[in-house]
């Protein structure tokens, strides 16, 4: 499934590993946020492996958007 988000193409990713990773991250985020993360939206704008990018840098990078609702 593709959709547009802020000018970028968004593809729904749901491999078992990605789904499990999201659940683990959600639990970790919940712990750090002291369970205040219902509706939490986590957005990062670089693919993890493209580590030279920065959220506010002008350097183009492949963004990743993660949403935990």
């Amino acid at each position, binding site marked *: 499934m593709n959709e547009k988000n802020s000018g*970028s193409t968004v593809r729904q990713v749901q491999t*078992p590993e990605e789904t499990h990773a999201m659940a683990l*991250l959600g639990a970790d985020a*919940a712990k750090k946020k002291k369970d205040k993360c219902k509706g939490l939206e986590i957005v990062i704008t670089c693919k993890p492996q493209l580590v*030279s990018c920065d959220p506010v840098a002008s350097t183009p990078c492949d963004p990743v958007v993660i*949403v935990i609702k």
Partner: protein
Amino acid sequence: MTSQSTRLRLSRYNVEVGGLSESGCPTGLFNTATGNYVALIGDVEVAWRRLRGGEGVSPAEAGLLFRAGFAVEEQLDELRAVRLAFEVGRRVDQGSHLTIAPTLDCNYACDYCFEEHVPGAMSSEVQQALIGFVRERLVRQQPTDLSVTWFGGEPLMAPSVIRVLSRAFQALVTEGLLLSYQAHTITNGQLLRPEMAAELLALGVNQVQVTLDGPREVHDRRRTLKNGGATFAAIANNLARMPSGLATVIRINVDRSNVSTVPRLFDELETLDLLGRVTVDVALVEDFSGCEMPSETLLAPKEFAGLEMEWMREAERRGFRLHVASPSPRLTGVCQVDSLNSFVVAPTGELYRCWAELGNGGHAVAQLLNRLTWSAPEPTGLTERDPFDDEECLACVLLPSCMGGCPLLRQNHRYWGQKVCPSIKHNFSEVLAGRFGQESRVVRYVRDSNDESAVIFPFAAVGPQPSQTTVGVPFAIQVPSSVRNSKPGVRSASLRVVQ
């Protein structure tokens, strides 16, 4: 309701906790990836014994294991999932932490200090640049939480810097740019007089950490004034007059020369009526250069882990608070090195990722006085390290709760061809038993489903488990499609990759 058979296996990250009970079972089960814990008592203990004996379990018990992450789909590559979570998690903004050194000067001359002390304090120009950096770079589009550690040198030698910056950060909360602000101070305690402590409290500091490296004669040998003068009495006097509301941690840095004196420090703190009013934190003196391990002076992590358990039992017997790090998932990072919006701030304006780099200009990732560097701090060997490049770590059940430990120690030890696992590897079972001993369930990762009754056995071919870990034994249960297709997470979750 339609049901569909799904083959499951126990998670490779399950850890049995505590010693064996009379019934032959450990006291609890912990998962290092989810952080979930369940006490092996009552029905759960019975179920676990059945699993170890190759028998089936009840629907409710099977439901708990699956939904709480102690069991996973057979085909799931858990290691890959943990890796993905870590790679994503350490790039996620989750608040900001600044470790600020108002000065690198110090009034002490401790024999093991790794810093080079430089006279002078942070200039007004750097202070204003730091306030601008927080306002424009860290807050950006949306408010965030900010926490600060006042560090040094000795931070209380530059109180005016703490005053100016704290008031500026508190004002950002009033403006609505920061969601919250809190701070703590690491100080040698010499200047922590009652009026200073009260002012720190008013400036948002809610905790101070003061170092006492042993009973009076031992401390006074290791931590002296620059002129060689003793310091224990002044610190103890200040600690006795701390205002309520300002939590106090007494840090004890230990190596072979003072480790045997720790119980005597407990005695002395008790005599001074301090022991019940503070939290005690005993820590290893580490070699951040990596070239002196193994060392005749430094304790090995395994030795420290054993001693830590003795101190933990002593704390329980005497009734005081001892801080002992407990395994917990580190999927969003090991320390502030793994936080995009966390920095160590030198009084000259350089920004670093790690405390131990402070003052070493070659490791700076940005400079507050150069706005062009604000938006894209340089990646470093620490921020780009790969905790998954070690075969032993890949096979370790503690990996999700360790991620290689301190990034700097890991890097330096590897440079010198050594490998040193954190002390928690050697005492995690006892530490976890102590942490969760009074609780029956701590579950923070839950798959969405209220329908346990539809999860039915039989399990298949579950053999006896190793004493410490349970890895990869497949079994089968039937899971309703409503559960299989639900998105696991705090409530639910989705992952979208923007291409």
